[in-house]
């Protein structure tokens, strides 16, 4: 039988993912759990395993394509029985069938809200049942695509949106061919609805606030919008009618008007330089890349941090001459034990020691609860540049680990981050972060806090510089430090004291033995 396989939720709360590469081709034999594709979520690249034993029948998504969770990405032929009964007894198969079905009905809707959810008032829903219409198939004209009573009615009368509105015409006809009773009827139906010029002139109009706002934006007098709808005997105007009116009244037949306003709706107000189809000239002058995946996640994290936490950055320098000596001495020792010892484990240890003295830098502000949460555990994030962008793997419980363990773990995590095999959990739960911007050169920076943490320590490049010791200018190894803090919870004085403590441990690394 054929098994269609949908993109599973490969990470928490994921809604879409990019197919990075296919590891199989059509016709390939696969076994259950064999990786068939690599997909990039907003956090990492993960492998998608085959759900079955069988052969690949068809691949539905191209490499580089961004696919919503739940979309069919690949089909398999399996050796299982091909009769219809088997499909229903196979629970996963059944579920997949459903997914496919719901995906189809979601497409039938105007927006891509999940299919079961109906945005329509209870009265409209009841009307639909009365008229024996599946409300999910009705196109909504209200704000956001909300289905109104009128939408349901016009759906029942045949797809009104594909034909010019018949109502005004027939009203004119009956008004001209008949007198007497018909006139009464017209009046009952609401005088405004029969104004053929498409201009009404009421004193009062009912409309939702969003509709009024739209009218204002379009420069339309809502009392002048013609409508046949009434609520409690008063004229009621829907957004679609405002748009029609703005587009030139009822002469514009519905489909034309809709197509136009549809487009107009997509162009942001005052949309400068966002022309959807760059011509050849524009393409030559700039390259456009989608802002998605890891890049977008980084961007959003930075935005949230910088717009939430008022940052202050404290700069200082440490004379790490002795640290350089110490590390130089320990390095071969560490190598013998199979570890590669950089300066980072020393910094991690110095930071943890200082955090214990200034716990406010190892905290989080819980705005909702109105509480500052000081953490008694020390999970240190190490900002890492990767080809895909910045990632921050976390060394958990750094206070309870030895220098070499930290070195090992860090090297391991950093490598995983670089080759994108890192698991989302390995980048979560940090309480304080360190960024080694000096790795690419540079003295000072203004690091952005890894929100909701409240502080981040930036390290410059260790350089030999002339410094005055005991009245003499001598060459010393100098490490510059840039500490950014969330000034909502941490004050400058605390930032300074913390930095002084870190400095002390880095200048006299043997102090770390006491920790």
């Amino acid at each position, binding site marked *: 039988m054929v098994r269609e396989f949908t993109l599973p939720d490969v990470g928490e*709360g994921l*809604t879409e993912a990019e197919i990075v590469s296919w590891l199989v081709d059509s016709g390939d034999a696969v076994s259950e759990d064999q990786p068939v594709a690599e997909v990039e979520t907003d956090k990492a690249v993960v492998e998608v395993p085959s759900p079955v034993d069988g052969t690949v029948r068809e691949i539905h998504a191209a490499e580089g394509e961004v696919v919503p*969770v*739940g979309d069919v990405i690949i089909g398999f032929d399996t050796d299982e029985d091909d009769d219809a009964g088997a499909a229903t007894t196979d629970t996963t198969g059944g579920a997949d069938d459903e997914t496919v079905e719901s995906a189809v009905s979601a497409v039938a809707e105007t*927006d*891509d*809200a*999940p299919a079961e*959810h*109906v*945005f*329509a*008032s*209870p009265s409209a*829903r*009841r009307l639909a*049942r*009365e008229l024996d219409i599946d409300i999910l198939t009705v196109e909504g004209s*209200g*704000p*956001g*695509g*909300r*289905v109104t009573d009128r939408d349901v009615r016009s759906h029942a009368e045949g797809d009104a949106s594909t034909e010019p509105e018949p109502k005004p015409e027939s009203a004119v006809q009956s008004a001209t061919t008949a007198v007497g009773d018909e006139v009464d009827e017209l009046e009952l139906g609401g005088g405004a609805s029969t104004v053929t010029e498409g201009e009404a002139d009421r004193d009062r109009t009912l409309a*939702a*606030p*969003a509709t*009024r*706002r739209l009218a204002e934006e379009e420069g339309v007098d809502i009392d002048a919008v013609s409508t046949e709808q009434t609520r409690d005997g008063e004229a009621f105007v829907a957004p679609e009618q405002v748009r029609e009116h703005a587009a030139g009244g009822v002469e514009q037949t519905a489909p034309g008007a809709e197509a136009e306003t549809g487009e107009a709706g997509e162009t942001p107000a005052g949309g400068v330089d966002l022309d959807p189809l760059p011509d050849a000239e524009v393409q030559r002058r700039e390259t456009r890349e989608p802002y998605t995946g890891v890049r977008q996640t980084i961007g959003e994290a930075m935005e*949230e941090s910088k*717009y*939430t936490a008022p940052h202050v950055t404290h700069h200082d320098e440490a004379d790490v001459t002795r640290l350089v000596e110490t590390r130089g001495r320990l390095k071969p020792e560490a190598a013998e034990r199979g570890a590669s010892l950089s300066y980072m484990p020393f910094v991690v240890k110095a930071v943890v020691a200082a955090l214990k003295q200034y716990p406010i830098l190892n905290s989080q502000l819980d*705005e*909702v*609860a*109105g509480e500052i949460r000081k953490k008694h555990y020390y999970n240190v994030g190490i900002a890492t540049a990767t080809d895909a962008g910045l990632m921050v793997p976390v060394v958990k419980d750094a206070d309870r680990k030895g220098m070499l363990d930290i070195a090992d773990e860090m090297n391991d995590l950093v490598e995983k981050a670089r080759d994108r095999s890192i698991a989302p959990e390995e980048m979560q739960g940090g309480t304080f972060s360190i960024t080694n911007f000096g790795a690419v050169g540079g003295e000072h920076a203004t690091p952005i806090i890894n929100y909701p943490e409240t502080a981040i320590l930036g390290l410059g490049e260790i350089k030999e510089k002339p410094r005055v010791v005991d009245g003499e200018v001598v060459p010393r190894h100098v490490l510059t430090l840039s500490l950014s803090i969330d000034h909502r919870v941490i004050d400058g004085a605390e930032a300074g004291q913390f930095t002084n403590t870190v400095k002390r441990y880095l200048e006299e690394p043997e102090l770390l033995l006491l920790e």
Partner: protein
Amino acid sequence: MVVGDISTGTEVLVIGAGPGGYVAAIRAAQLGLDTTLVERDAYGGVCLNRGCIPSKALITGADTAHEAAAAEEMGIHADPAVDMAGLQSWKDGVVDQLTGGVEKLCKANGVNLVEGTAEFASEGTVRVAHGGEGQGSETLEYEHAIIATGSRPIEVPGFAFDGEHVLSSKHALDLDSVPESLVVVGAGYIGMELSTTYAKLGSDVTVVEMLHAALPAYEEDVGRVVRKRAEELGVEFNFGEGASEWEPQGDGVRVTTETEGGETATYDADTVLVAVGRQPVTDTLGLENVGLDPTERGFLDTDDYGETNVDGIYAVGDVAGEPMLAHKASAEGEVVAEVIAEEPAAMDFQSIPNAVFTDPEVGTVGMTEAEAEEAGFDPTVGQMPMHASGRALTLRESEGFVRVVADADTGFLLGAQIVGPEASELIAEVGLAIEMGATLEDVGSTVHTHPTLSEAVMEAVKNAEDAAIHTLNR
């Protein structure tokens, strides 16, 4: 047929006169159907007699006493004495007024009332055993039957309810004196409502809960606010512990609890209240005689029209599944009555609101952010802390928040979580918005009265639009 049986026929037979059953019966009768309502105990069911109404009455009593005694910062000094018997008789008066009202309404709408316990005899007939021994029984023939037999408290093994040492919620609502100390097993909504009530009336309350939060069915930050306030009232929480046994200890009880790891603890108190959930009443109805098969948990599965998998038999309220709430029971009752009358009704509620009458109250409706994500929306969230509400401050109730969840693309409201004063009332506005398919802009542009708590709903909505005035937008 048993000797002494008399047989009558009815178009619609409703079993159980709780908020599900009596509403179904009244609506069916309104629609011109010949309707019979059978109740074995008291009109109004659990809700009116030993649930929603009596519990809210006691909560009001406890609040009144507590607030009067704790108003010194406002310059008000009082030391109210609580006469529990007096409080109980006031509560009973309220209950009687309402249950009497239900009975009158049923009669006025032409519902035939039958007192007794109903049991399905065969397809199309129900036997009703009247009151006590020797009072006889009768057989009723029906065209349509609506099962609305509600639910009863779940017993923890070893904790048989005796009304003296081991209390169910029903017993806890009928105490004629305030216990000096009370162990409450279960920190769900019933456990938390009663713990708060008795803490305010002066009991030393110890709560034991297997999970790790108060109101564990809600989001973590919701339960946290309620727990914090309860702790301020002196309630002591022991999470991660399940009640395993009890023994008499002097005049009171000694309750033993066990953690998952097998560690035990004991708590001494006057009595222990067990509130660990409720189970549907479907085991005493002779369902096998009509071929109805309840689910493993005892619920009856129904379709969008409230019909079970047996033609002509419907189920509403607690027996028809979660959420087990009175307003859900009533809403279902109305739908089923209209379906039987061939009106175009169906259970198409987009959301069912939910309230917990703790201090502060909790009101939720629709989806949480996580649920919205799971459902495939791209949710946007807006929040307003109660301490930024002028009205909340003047009520001295500034704990909590209003949070709204909407679809980022369309602005449609999807849900709300409210913790704070009158959350049970505030949630109604969001319920209406969801049901109407209103957008953030619709609610945000609706002018709200100042100074009221409802402004917090508007502000949360505006916060979701990054346009809140009284909080920082993010």
